[in-house]
């Protein structure tokens, strides 16, 4: 009795998590994409008096230089989403490919690729990013490249471990018995069945990448030519008591975006499973 109640409550929670993830993610994307409609100001221009509280003219108020906070938030959110998306996708593509090849081929190729992945994994991402910024200047592209090239290793390991499980299943043998070549087996049989856990991971990496970018910008090491949520938070520090909106709104945007993407990726895993669709 109590057990079924618990189950029901658990199921409802999961449904809610999926809905919350979807709403937050869609909201973040909409705000980034259509933000110009609600905030028509140039994020770099001083458009009014500094430190105005939220009002009808400036929905989220203005910052210490009199720039419209909503316009800046929209621009910053765009940067965050681009960083997260590019990094997460390249991590999925590179890591998925490396893991698939390593797991399927085994032997020397596997050893070589995995040792290389470990090498990448022991590099501290944040400080590597710092180093690159110091050496090559702080541009958004540099940052994205560094994050993309360091985040695939975990994906590769997880993909490989799934591939090792899947490739021993009988349907893979069945394909081989029918005459399928190694490449066909890797692409058609193993890859689709090993991909699911990576999708969840990609959500985590999406959030991770956004945080690193925000962190660097917070320290003043971000790309000075783009607006960043981290940089906005950094600016807000001296005005915490006088202009709370400068810290609260960018912080909320950052937190909600990461939360939403994580929840969504988690539930996406369940959507991708054919056992949960179809007539039931």
């Amino acid at each position: 009795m109590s057990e079924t109640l618990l189950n029901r409550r658990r199921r409802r929670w999961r449904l809610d998590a999926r809905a919350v993830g979807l709403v937050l993610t869609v909201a973040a994307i909409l705000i980034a994409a259509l933000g110009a409609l609600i905030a028509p100001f140039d994020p770099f221009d001083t458009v009014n008096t500094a430190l105005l509280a939220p009002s009808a003219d400036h929905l989220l108020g203005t910052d210490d230089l009199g720039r419209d906070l909503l316009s800046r938030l929209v621009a910053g959110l765009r940067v965050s989403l681009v960083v997260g998306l590019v990094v997460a996708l390249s991590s999925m593509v590179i890591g998925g490919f490396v893991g698939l090849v390593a797991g399927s081929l085994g032997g020397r190729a596997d050893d070589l690729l995995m040792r290389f992945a470990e090498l990448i994994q022991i590099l501290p991402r944040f400080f590597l990013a710092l180093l690159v910024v110091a050496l090559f200047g702080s541009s958004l592209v540099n940052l994205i490249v560094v994050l993309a090239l360091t985040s695939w290793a975990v994906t590769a390991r997880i993909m490989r471990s799934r591939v090792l499980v899947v490739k021993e299943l009988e349907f893979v043998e069945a394909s081989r018995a029918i005459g399928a070549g190694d490449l066909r087996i890797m692409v058609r049989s193993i890859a689709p069945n090993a991909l699911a856990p990576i999708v969840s991971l990609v959500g985590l990496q999406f959030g991770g990448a956004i945080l690193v970018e925000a962190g660097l910008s917070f320290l003043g090491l971000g790309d000075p030519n783009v607006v960043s949520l981290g940089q906005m938070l950094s600016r807000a520090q001296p005005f915490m008591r006088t202009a709370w909106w400068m810290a609260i709104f960018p912080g909320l945007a950052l937190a909600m975006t990461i939360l939403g993407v994580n929840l969504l990726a988690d539930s996406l895993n369940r959507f991708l499973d054919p056992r949960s669709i179809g007539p039931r």
Partner: protein
Amino acid sequence: MTEPLVQVRNLEKHFPVRGGVLQRTTGWVKAVTGVSFDIAKGETLGLVGESGCGKSTLGRMLVRLLDPTGGSILFENVDIATASGNELKTLRRDVQMIFQDPYSSLDPRTQVGSSIAEGLKIHGIGDSDEVQERVSEMLELVGLERHHASRFPHEFSGGQRQRIGIARALILRPRFVVADEPVSALDVSVQAQVLNLLSELQQELDLTLLFIAHNLAVVEHVSDRVAVMYLGDIVEIAHRDDLYREPQHPYTEALLSAIPIPDPTLKRDRVVLVGDVPSPLNPPTGCKFHPRCPIAHLGVCDIETPHLEYVAEGSIHEASCHLRTGAYRHLDPSRTNT
């Protein structure tokens, strides 16, 4: 016996055992040790033995899912054991396998129709209409319906899944099929249906079958001839009726006496084996069965290795036992009268 379709000669499979920090080969598991037999066109050869005796390894070599360590498998003048490239690919059309576990033998993310059609696509047979037509035909042939092609494996029961597995194996019109315990994962009530389907299809499509199982009753039902394996060797091979009526090898006797009789009033002499199957890593010397054999004669059985020999002149019944078929018949304590 009619002409053989498959001729297996001295087939061996040894798996390396690696150990230590450097992963060096420290030993070999001799899963199959020099097995020879023929399978005639259109017949069903049953292959029985305990878990781990090498029967699945043997079956997987016959369809070349495993590369043999030695020996040959002649299929119409082509050696399955060494074929490669295009030769092997052509061979795959003729030689197919039905798998044991209907749950893991179908790709959960692929529609059943695509799974069945995969063979046609790989071998470039037919355009898409033709492929669809043949998949539908095949589904009906195994007792399913056309519209099942667009469903996913999880929507089917175990028996239905096994039918799908059979359809996938047979769509290329193979002539030789290895069925590796095709019913042991199924409910007893469904086993009979799948077995009957298999024998119907065998008639209809003129199939030659190697039927691997550990259930002697099932093997008796489907086989023309039966081979018994123990620790990587065939110890007895005979016509089904001969083997079940007059087993020659003591191991076969023990297996047969373990079949339950569905009549509580009947009693029989059980030959109960003691001990476990020895490790194939370090098999016993001489006859591998001697440590568990109720009639073993020390001094002979633990020293000399027996080979398959005909039980009698002109018979096709072969067994590998010093005391029953070999030169030491006179030592058999249980058959002093022969």
